[in-house]
């Protein structure tokens, strides 16, 4: 009988002293070496033989990758090896980035989140990665270390397709920065899966909204859709609609309708494309109305 639980295939575990050496190793072994954090995505890929790297380059011990710092001027910087549980437990994250906390809690069970990282969730670039939409409505960027120096890239430019990101060989994401959310902002992450807690999202919506006197409506909304297109979708047209028109229920419905039109869902084991589209409409409408209620009640 075939073993339904294949062991990990052969690979070599690499642990180098510095990020410079790790980046150089990755550069010298293009297509053969994978950066390794919690491994919770990597191992799944290795076990079903979707991924066959010869080398796993551990980053967890590297200096600087373990820091989680909040500065009211600069915002939040999350080192690559910070686990989702460390993020969820951090007071400044709970207070200033509640949508990210909500989303991080959706990932697997408690044990898994002791290994799984925000950076891994982002670098894995799955359109249903729970933390990607919230990180995008917070206008996050990735800070990249490479053999030729460092650079930062807004998340909007980081995702190229499912599992594809804008990194070249030898580049390592060393941290993620989320600026301080605008004053008075409210938001929510609404996610629908086959079960309430541990399954991957069928569709999810992240909404962040805040008062802004420079917009005609007096508010701005950011809306991101997950699990319904090759990459997370920012619904620009609906964002513009809600900043240029008076805020009223019919405009939330219209925005939700635009969201439904802007996604490109697929049929898969979790849901049909059609159901996903309807979910986008319902979740967007629900999230906009609820966020609006909380904006008014503060």
């Amino acid at each position, binding site marked *: 009988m075939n073993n339904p*639980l294949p062991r990990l295939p052969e690979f070599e575990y690499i642990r180098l002293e510095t990020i410079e050496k790790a980046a150089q190793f990755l550069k010298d072994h293009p297509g053969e070496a994978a950066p390794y954090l919690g491994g919770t995505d990597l191992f799944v890929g290795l076990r079903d033989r979707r991924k066959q790297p010869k080398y796993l380059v*551990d980053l967890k011990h590297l200096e600087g990758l373990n820091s989680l710092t909040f500065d009211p001027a600069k915002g939040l910087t999350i080192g690559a090896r910070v686990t989702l549980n460390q993020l969820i437990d951090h007071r400044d994250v709970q207070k200033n980035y509640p949508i990210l906390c909500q989303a991080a809690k959706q990932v697997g069970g408690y044990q*898994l989140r002791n*290994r799984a990282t925000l950076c891994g969730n982002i670098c894995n670039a799955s359109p249903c990665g729970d933390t990607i939409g919230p990180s995008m409505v917070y206008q996050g960027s990735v800070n990249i270390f490479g053999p030729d120096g460092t650079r930062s890239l807004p998340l909007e430019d980081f995702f190229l397709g499912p599992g594809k990101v804008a990194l070249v060989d030898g580049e390592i994401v060393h941290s993620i920065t989320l600026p301080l959310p605008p004053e008075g902002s409210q938001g929510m992450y609404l996610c629908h899966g086959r079960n309430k807690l*541990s399954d991957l999202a069928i569709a999810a919506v992240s909404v962040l909204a805040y008062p802004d006197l420079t917009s005609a409506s007096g508010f701005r909304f950011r809306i991101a859709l997950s699990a319904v297109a090759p990459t997370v979708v920012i619904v620009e047209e609906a964002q513009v609609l809600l900043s240029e028109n008076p805020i009223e229920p019919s405009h939330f419905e219209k925005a939700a309708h635009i969201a439904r039109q802007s996604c490109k869902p697929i049929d898969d084991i979790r849901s049909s494309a059609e159901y996903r589209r309807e979910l986008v409409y319902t979740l967007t409408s629900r999230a906009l109305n609820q966020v609006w209620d909380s904006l008014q009640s503060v």
Partner: protein
Amino acid sequence: MKMHTINFTINGRKESLKVSSNLTLLHMIRENLALTGTKNGCEAGECGACTVLLNGEPVNSCMVLAVECDRAEIMTVEGLTENGELARLQESFKNLNAVQCGFCTPGMLITAYELLQRNPHPTPSEIKEALVGNLCRCTGYERIIQAVEQASGE
């Protein structure tokens, strides 16, 4: 394949082993150390039957490499008993029949044990949240939640 020497402590006992890169902590515990309390339910991070404490934190041992455990402290379900005496949590599981086939029990115990270290008096909803990553196909969970509550109440 290159072998790596690792030194670690498991259930308070010092060990040294030569391991290959792709050996998981789960297989090391069950096969190299013959501690078969820790179960292999899915080998995919889904079921929690393989949960052990790694430096005090519960992890799915099927998702950790043995080679990473150099200088680590590991605790498995066998480490819960002292001198053959069941721990309070184990007694509660026994008293409340929170065990049927028992396959999920070692993982449940370890996850719940660490929860009680972190939060000595969890509410039922905190218990449920902590145990999301531990699947049970038999009990329907109610008894397990009650057992954790009972152990926390004494």
